[in-house]
């Protein structure tokens, strides 16, 4: 049974929700989008949506999964939008033209083979892995957050594990090839320096 929307109640509720969960929601969005500034903006966006849609939450005990559902949809929406934005001619003055120090720091933090592999798998699969393995959602919470049935959530997660495994193998191969290339370059330089 949904509750009636009450402005004061909604505000109190969302403030409490923010105090408890904003850190993990932000971290989830960073990992999904690989952009700290954008993740901060979308975290804010997610809490505003929680506020507006406070009346759709049926049980308080489901609030965390419900909040993840909002964040998940915000993230997917943003990723979809990026695909559209890519079609707009780049002017050289866009958001990504001069990365901030924070953005660079974030990129460094997310630059390992695992992060790169995660970035390469389909978005929903990435979300499933992050939510299950890093954010400790149960199977049912995962299903609620992703807006699919329990069976479908498990299936997406299985597919995600398979995709990650393949992507990691590719990343390791690339890394190995890059190392060999570096070694060869050093060897050439060493020979040239003699």
């Amino acid at each position, binding site marked *: 049974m949904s509750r009636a929307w009450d*402005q004061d109640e909604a505000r109190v509720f969302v403030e409490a929700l923010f105090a408890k969960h904003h850190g993990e929601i932000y971290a989830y969005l960073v990992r999904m989008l690989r952009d700290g500034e954008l993740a901060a903006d979308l975290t804010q966006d997610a809490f505003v949506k929680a506020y507006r*849609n406070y009346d759709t939450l049926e049980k308080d005990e489901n609030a965390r999964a419900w909040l993840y559902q909002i964040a998940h949809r915000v993230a997917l929406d943003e990723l979809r939008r990026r695909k559209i934005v890519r079609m707009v001619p780049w002017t050289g003055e866009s958001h990504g033209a001069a990365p901030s120090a924070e953005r660079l720091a974030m990129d460094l933090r997310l630059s390992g083979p695992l992060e790169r592999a995660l970035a390469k798998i389909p978005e929903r699969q990435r979300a499933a892995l992050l939510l299950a393995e890093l954010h400790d959602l149960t199977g049912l919470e995962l299903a609620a957050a992703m807006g699919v049935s329990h069976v479908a959530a498990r299936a997406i997660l299985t597919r995600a594990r398979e995709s990650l495994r393949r992507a990691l193998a590719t990343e390791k191969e690339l890394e190995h090839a890059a190392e060999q290339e570096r070694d060869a370059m050093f060897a050439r330089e060493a020979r040239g320096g003699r």
Partner: protein
Amino acid sequence: MTLPFRRRHNDAEATHDRARALSSRRLLESLDADEEGWLTRHLDACTECRREDEAFAADQELLRSLREKPIEPPRDLWAKTSAALDAAAAKRSQPAPGRAGRQAGWGFPVRAAAGVFALLVVIGAAVLPGLLPNGQPGGSQVAVGPSLAPGPTAINVDTAAIPAARVSPDGSWDIFFTEVNKVCPGSTPECVPPPSEHQGSTVDLLGAKASSVTISPHNDQLVFESESGAGNEGKIYIVPVGPAGGPTQAPSTPTASPTGSTPPSESPEPTPAATPVGQIEIASGVTVVGEVAYSPDGQFLAFSAAPKDGSSGPDLYVYAAGNPGAVAVTSDHRTYFSAWLGNRVLASHITADESAAPGNPKASKAPGASGNGNNGQGQAIEGRAGSFLFDPATDTRTELTQPDVWMPVVDTNSRFVAYWTGTLRSSDGVTWQLGDGQLVLDGWNAGAPEGRASTEPATPDANASPEPVVGPAANATPLVTGHVEDFRAKFDPDGIRLAVWVSERVGEIDGRLHLRVIDPATGALRPDEPLDAPGVPALRRFSIDENRLAWVSPSGQDGHESALQVLGWSGDTFGQIHSEPATNLLILR
């Protein structure tokens, strides 16, 4: 085309899939004792699955190591969020006369707001991330789950429900029905939430050959072939399904054979004791070749089936509700069920050109003689197709007049027919493929009423006298371009929309689906196709019914998983919608 004489489902593969699913699942939640035991035994026996299990666990550890890199939110996040909440509250409390839908909260006329918003999304997200409503970059309009309301562009459609199933590795089939009443135009995909489903039964069909599982027109029975399980291989069953909770009551019980002269009895007899409760075995020792289909009234079932041992090709079988089993109505071992036309069966048979048999110098050389080859399997036997109508109520067979008509499908108004016209090829005389020819649309000569059809009872290899007026009108138009190895065609109930699934590779379940629309006034194909040319990726099974076409998209399309896709229409206005992604989806009719 591979004449559908191939097993599409691999039982061993399904077992490994189940192991993989359980390996993944137990990292998320505990398995029950049976599942845990089964998985342990399987991993002991299967090195590859054990490696995968270990890799899943290792990757989990690796993922969890990311926790050691904490991600701290910016300090001003609350200040910004609080300001955004204030702004949202202020907007919510503003009066907005004449508004409708969730866009109304922004205080603009809906269409204008949508247009401005779309523009801001594209420009703003790229250039000015801080200038969208509430200062939120992207200003996302995503609503929470079920509260998402249809956008202004949704197209209302009145469609037939889509029966489908999700198949679990443990052999249970969750049957569900998808209701679609709104679709989105191509310009605004996902303008409405995924279509709603209502759950049907869950039935245990462990070992079922997926391509054979078909639901009856009244959604109260499933027919399937069992290809594995203790003593169940090569048996075809009918199992009743209810609205929920699995098998309900037994289907109609045995009475008479369709080839006998005794009309179906009104008095039921007991279900054979050897079969599970509610389940009827209608054939054994055979494997289904191609499609299984109920007649439109649900009283008959038709399919072609070949001996399980592969010793010969298929014959046409018909099962009548209430009979003890399906009966072969041909015995030439080269007859393939094509479709129902009202309550008559359309089927095709092959006549091999014996003068071109292997070993005979006249045999055509393959591959690449011309058109569709035989995949390099040496010398090819060429076959000629013929088709006929069979009436299971009277056991009469009417040969179509035109030769080289393969797998014809006729619309419900008996105006049009789609078929392959050309030759067939085989390397062994048992398994046949499409040879040279093309897939066409033609007019259909329905012939005289029943009285003019041959009234000869169907007999093995009967050479029934041809009826000069029944069959294609010999005014064929190509339906699709490009190479065709396999196809399926079905008309919608209006008889003017024809869905054609085509595969370019032998034995593949992935192909491309086309929808061709026929101008009812002229009988000509309209040049524009509602689905993107050259068709959309689709698994072999699709469903076309009132005002909609449904199919399952293969996984891997743009990195996406499989999903139930629906093209709906209202007159000449078409739109599309898809379900949430899922694995192991199967359309049941």
